């Protein structure tokens, strides 16, 4: 029998028992949709947490520390840049000397950080306003810069902080030199950008960020000898990998050069393992629903075989191969499985979209907060892998459920079947 005719044959039988087949497909659909939606919650929450961690550049970040074997870290910055999959190497140097900032009549103390802004731009230095420095005397200030600038009120001796605009403003910055005296000629800087507030609410950022091109001038002011011990700078070197997957590769190479490294992706791995187990558990629970649906398929197919005993007998009598009869019944149950799966997939996408639209509204209104723009919860995600897994389980279970009734059909005795009453 040609395959096309086999399909026709199966369709003809299905059309005969529309209601029964429909109910069986419905059961298979519900089972499969339950599996997909259940597991999609695991995928959704995992993705939300992962995205949250990935969204700040911390994940691709590898912090590098000197070790007993390797202590010339600053000199290695260029060699780190040559490692494959390295996106940027940032050497933030913090000035470790007393200083004084003066803006209009306000005075204050701010940490001074020098970094290579070409590298910073590659990994996205986050600005609330303005732009990154392009010249030696341009700086970006931390979001709380103004809160560390004070003026003493003459009337009640209270301190007032600076609340005026910052962008475009100039301030002078004086440092203590190596002898411990404030330099006479302070430097002047123009504010071109304001940094984003730190992600943690309670933290504040009062730093001044300048480009590395200002370094020679500052060193001259500090008047240090060439000796390294006298250097006022504290280095903090961070290497950024291009992708999370490459963090461990890059880390390994840096370690091979004798340095210590730390990366948050080490912790991400544990999160992945936890969610892998959770997802497997959810798929297992979903599979039980499909197994329950399979009882329906088994029942439908057994009834189909019993009802068609005489027809199967006639077919065998005129020369149908028992294997063909078995195949026709297995195809019928597989068709139920395929239809159930296709409808379930469409249904699951619908449920998933609705859940992602409605649940965040419910959650945020229950918490009494509006949905913050920077935090998006995704409850349900259906990746193609889940579709593949669910389809294999659902169609596989349908075929297995139809197998026994199909075997029973091949065992039908022709003589007995022909004797059956019409």
């Amino acid at each position, binding site marked *: *029998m040609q395959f096309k005719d086999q399909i026709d044959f199966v369709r003809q039988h299905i059309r005969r028992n529309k209601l029964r087949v429909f109910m069986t497909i419905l059961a298979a659909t519900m089972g499969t949709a339950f599996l997909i939606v259940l597991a999609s919650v695991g995928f959704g929450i995992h993705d939300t947490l992962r995205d949250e961690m990935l969204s700040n550049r911390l994940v691709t970040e590898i912090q590098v520390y000197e070790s007993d074997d390797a202590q010339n870290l600053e000199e290695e910055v260029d060699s780190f840049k040559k490692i494959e999959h390295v996106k940027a190497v940032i050497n933030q140097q913090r000035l470790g000397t007393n200083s004084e900032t003066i803006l209009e009549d306000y005075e204050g103390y701010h940490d001074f950080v020098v970094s290579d802004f070409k590298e910073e731009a590659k990994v996205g230095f986050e600005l609330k306003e303005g732009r990154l420095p392009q010249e030696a005397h341009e700086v970006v200030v931390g979001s709380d810069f103004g809160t560390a600038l004070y003026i003493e009120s003459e009337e009640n001796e209270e301190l007032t902080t600076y609340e005026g605009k910052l962008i475009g403003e100039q301030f002078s910055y004086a440092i203590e030199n190596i002898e411990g005296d404030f330099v006479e000629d302070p430097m002047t800087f123009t504010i071109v950008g304001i940094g984003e507030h730190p992600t943690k609410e309670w933290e504040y950022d009062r730093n001044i960020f300048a480009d590395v091109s200002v370094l020679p001038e500052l060193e001259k002011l500090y008047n240090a000898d060439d000796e390294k011990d006298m250097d006022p700078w504290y280095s903090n070197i961070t290497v950024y990998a291009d992708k999370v997957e490459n963090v461990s590769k890059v880390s390994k190479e840096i370690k091979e050069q004798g340095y210590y490294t730390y990366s948050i992706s080490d912790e991400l791995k544990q999160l992945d393992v936890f969610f892998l187990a959770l997802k497997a558990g959810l798929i297992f629970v979903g599979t039980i629903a499909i197994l329950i649906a399979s009882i329906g398929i088994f029942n439908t197919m057994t009834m189909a075989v019993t009802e068609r005993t005489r027809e199967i007998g*006639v077919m065998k*009598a*005129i*020369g149908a*191969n028992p294997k063909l009869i078995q195949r026709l019944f297995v195809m019928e149950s597989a068709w139920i499985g395929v239809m159930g799966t296709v409808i379930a997939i469409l249904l699951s996408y619908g449920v998933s979209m609705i859940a992602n639209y409605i649940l965040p509204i419910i959650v945020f209104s229950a918490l009494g907060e509006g949905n913050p723009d920077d935090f998006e919860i995704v409850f349900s995600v259906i990746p193609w892998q889940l579709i593949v897994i669910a389809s294999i389980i659902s169609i596989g279970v349908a075929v297995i459920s139809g197998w026994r009734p199909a075997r029973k059909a091949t065992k039908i005795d022709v003589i007995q079947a*022909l004797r059956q009453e019409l």
Partner: protein
Amino acid sequence: MIQVMNLSHAFKIGKRGNEKSIPVLKDIDFRVKQGEIVSIVGKSGSGKSTFLHVLAGFMVPQKGKVLINGTETSTFKEAESAAFRLENYGFIFQNFQLMPRLNAFENIELPLKLQGIDRVKRHEKVKALMKETGLDNVADHYPNELSGGQQQRVGIARALITNPPIIFADEPTGSLDSETEQDVLLLIQSLNQTHGITFVIITHDEEVAHIANRMYTMHDGQLTEGSDQRAI
């Protein structure tokens, strides 16, 4: 064409360990030449249907051989037997045994589908045969919309559609009135003459048996050539 040698078969009844063996076919020898119509007449329970089932390969005999054109079919496995039936035999049943949810056309087409023949060729063949058997005006009728005679014509056309060398007919007129019976018998005779098909007809009706070139009678599992009044 058909050669049966020393064929014996017994049914076992009763529970295991306490079985009784009831012989139904006893040392049967039987020969049919190509193009013959042979009838086997016998009372109900004489063993004629069992004999047909053995000939058709629906059951395996306990003793003896069945040879069709020199091929021993009595040792075939189920799948081999099915494949052999599809190519070599046609069947006409007392109850017509049509598929209730297929129309006349589709019922006749079924064996060709099983043979894997192309749709276009199938349709050509079925149309031609329906015309020959006078069924062309009932092609889209379902079995329950046809008279007994028409149903049997469809049954005959289904048996004939694959051009088998042999057609087995089990009480082909058993469910028909006498007028329709004559029609069907004439059709069988004409097909035998025009297509040269060998017919083996099982019947309890001597009138049916008389259209045969040769007649056998079955009595208590024994087959003898010629008319045996005990058997009718």
